[in-house]
């Protein structure tokens, strides 16, 4: 696993995915929830 110092950059598609997620969420989401969503999205694709 890459460490905390690893440089992670979000692509435009990642941003659009997060934006779509936020717009459909019934309540505000925490940063941890966004991280989980990104991870689950990647895992689903794999």
């Amino acid at each position, binding site marked *: *696993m*890459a*460490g*905390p*110092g*690893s*440089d*992670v*950059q*979000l*692509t435009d*598609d*990642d*941003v*659009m*995915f*997060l*934006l*779509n997620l*936020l*717009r459909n*969420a*019934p*309540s*505000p*989401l*925490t*940063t*941890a929830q*966004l*991280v989980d969503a*990104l*991870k689950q*999205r*990647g*895992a*689903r*694709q*794999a």
Partner: protein
Amino acid sequence: MVTNQETRSPAFAGTKKSQALANKAFDVLRSRGMFMSDYSPIRVPAEALTAFLVEREGAKAADVASAIRDNPDVFSTVSVDGIDYVLTTRTGKAPVSNEAASTHSLTARFLTPEPKPVRPPRPAPVRVRVDPNWATWSVPEFTDDDEDAYLDQPDEDDVVVIVADTGPAPVAEATPVPEATAPVVSPPVEDVVADVPAAEPEPVAHEVVAEAEPEPVVAEVEPVIPEPEPVVIETVESEPEPVAAEPEPVAAVPAARPMIAARDFSGFDDTAIAAAIDSRLADDQRVAQFAGQWMAEDRVARLGRNDIRRIKDYITEQEQPLTDSALAQDVLNVRPNSADFALIQFAVNFRLSREHRDFDFVGTNDQRFWSTSSLPQIGTTRRKPNEIGTDYRYLVDEIPAHADYRSVESVSHVLSFYEIMLGLLPYNLDMQRLLPKPVLPEQRSAVLTFEIPQLYTTYLVELRYPTPNRGGFLLGLDDFYGESLVAGAMISISATESDGHYKIEFLPGANQNARLLDLDDRRSPRYHFRPTSYACEVAPEWLISEDRFPKLGNEKPLDDKVRRRPDAVVEATFERVGLEDGSSFISTFDELLAAANIERPISETLLRATLEQHARVSSDDGDTFTYDAG
């Protein structure tokens, strides 16, 4: 004197004979009721009365009946169970029934209620329409083109890559045909047949799959066909890079919005991903962020100027910072069990965070307090917060830059005279490990609630975070200290589940009386010893009593210029509490520590460093120090 009651006979009507008979009849009746009250009805059967008068007076029955009938003012008749009675009263007036004139009575009403009136059907009430200008908040409709475009895209499972072959190579060599006709199962993708004229030697027609984008695929492909060369459109599944491993003549022309497969973030640390989200979304105008929470900006309820003003007025009226929850309920009238409550809380926080001039965020993650500039400061007014922060400047050096916030459950502390007088606690390393870090980067203070279970009281305490040149401290405990504690009291501060709520407990003890130091700052500030009763356990080395430091009585507080310099405070403390030996003063470390903390906060580390660096202070054992004042 005895006076006989005079009885008056009533005036009778009729003939004289009739009057005489009526008078006799009246006498009979009155004699029968001689012990009755004046207005009680005297009742005698008409038959008996007539028989009596016939027998005694020799009157005729008809005359008796006529006499009674002719005087209705004197006599009345009533028939009960078939028997006629003649009635009168001692006053000579026909009795009047005591029954109420009305047939209605409360009892009757209860026993015989009237039938429920039949009301005509009411017309539907006209609802008052609230002017949209006064609406509290509104959620705008979503008309974001980016979102629509994103939703129109196919699933990430399918990636369409269009490869145009402009070279002379035959199609069969460029790309294998089976790949080009691979099926796509994504719902948004529909089949489009692109019949492309094939080049020699034999024509090749491909059924290709392309996205249903506004621009047809063929239109995009056309510009890259200078000759009747074959165009190959192939589909590739889940490949981040388009397959362009073809010879030079092949040029990759992407579709209008090709979907790239989602990245796999499982190999990255959560902190790194969170940092990436922060850096990418923090400045994105489409996203609203507050205290680690995110939302689409266009879904955040908007607060009008009127709402902002009402929130400000309400905080000012309550004279204390209020949480987002209280503001949402009391000002915006949103119930906590409402489905929108979390949204409104977030809206309050996000919108107020944009009002820098009027509102200050002074909360924690679990208790999001908001304050205004017009609120009075929490805690003592004896000294300005900036001056207190300057007094605690030494803490900036004693606390590491990155301490672990909320890493301990409880902290024990012994109160100094300085802390007792100002009702504060130092934000030292222990407290930093107990308390939460600032929620916002520029946050200067946080309002916490400190509960004292032993007193069933909760205080609002303001935590002033340290700045580069001022130390941190907590204000607002002066009432608690003044009522229950003295210098030297041992307290314990415990964390709770909420990072904004803490509990303070002190060690209760037997009632004790002592003459303890106090500051009389009414006109000319001066220390004096005052008889004090307290019921808490104290650390004796921190107790400032007359027995220990008799010379402190009637001392004036040091000038501010002197107070700022720890070495000057140490010198003054030697002279106040030290054992005088010629021009020298001798004192122990504990005495110096307790007495120096009367004027200003000094930690053990700072005091020891000051003593070691002072040119005229010496010590043999590290515990007893001598100050040469000469």
